[in-house]
């Protein structure tokens, strides 16, 4: 069974990562976690991003939350912020869509256009 002592090994690994991180552009994945987002399924989306990012050891990606951004009908909403690039807003997300966003956008650098808010409102 897992014990807290295992955190020491993760800490040592992360210390090396943090040291090299400064060289890379940072990426923030932000999940809407107000009542509207939570009710629509934001938590499994957040967990799926976290798991994928951790398993692929994407060193420059952080996954976090925000409140209601006012488009409750499109929740779960995920915003991706990349240094020097325009913000990308994904709507009606689910854990199945997360894998594609991670591989094509966070790793490959090309946003998944069909999941973005721009596509939905057309």
């Amino acid at each position, binding site marked *: 069974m897992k014990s807290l002592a295992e*955190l*020491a090994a993760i800490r040592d690994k992360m210390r090396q990562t943090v040291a090299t991180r400064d060289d890379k552009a940072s990426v923030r994945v932000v999940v809407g976690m107000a009542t509207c987002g939570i009710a629509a399924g934001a938590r499994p989306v957040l967990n799926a991003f*976290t798991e994928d990012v951790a398993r692929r050891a994407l060193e420059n990606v952080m*996954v*976090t939350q925000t409140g209601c951004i006012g488009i409750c009908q499109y929740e779960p909403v995920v915003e991706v912020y990349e240094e020097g690039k325009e913000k990308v807003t994904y709507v009606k997300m689910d854990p199945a869509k997360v894998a594609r966003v991670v591989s094509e956008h966070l790793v490959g650098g090309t946003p998944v256009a069909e999941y973005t808010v721009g596509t939905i409102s057309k």
Partner: protein
Amino acid sequence: MQELSLNILDIAQNSVRANASLIGIKVEADTAAERLIITITDNGCGMSAETVAGVMDPFYTTRKTRKVGLGISFFRLAAQQTGGDLTVESELGKGTRVTAWFTLGHIDLAPVGDLEGTVTSLVQCNPDIDFVYTLCVDGQTFEMDTRDMRAILGEVSLAEPQVALFIREYLTENTQEMIPPEFHGGIIPK
């Protein structure tokens, strides 16, 4: 909300917005007495008696972005439909305690759901806040305190995806055998 753990996540967000530095989440079950009690406490800014009186009203919110505040109403409804209820105690400058109690085994009890996912999400998204999560089932207790994790992690953030993944697996492994079948809700899956 499909699960009570999602209500917990939602209510704890209020504690985050209240600028709490310490948030407690306690889930206590006594299967013989058919009682489930969920308590969310914080040391945030607290509320005046007038505000506390308003939070039960779904058309009351302090937010300016929209006109409804459904979090407490949803959670209270989930409790009331099992014969339980919810109270909010608060003091300005001291903090807030939300207590909800439920009848275990009641046909209208929502599944308790993914508590580990809720706790992990809260810790990961609010790495500067400390969380104490307590699960107590029929006298057996599990407790997780982020201050213990912080002591080991040093300058490495609780927000790191690798740390969050560990927390989730740590919680799952250490609590899954404590979860009684009654937590699956009023209709126990076959």
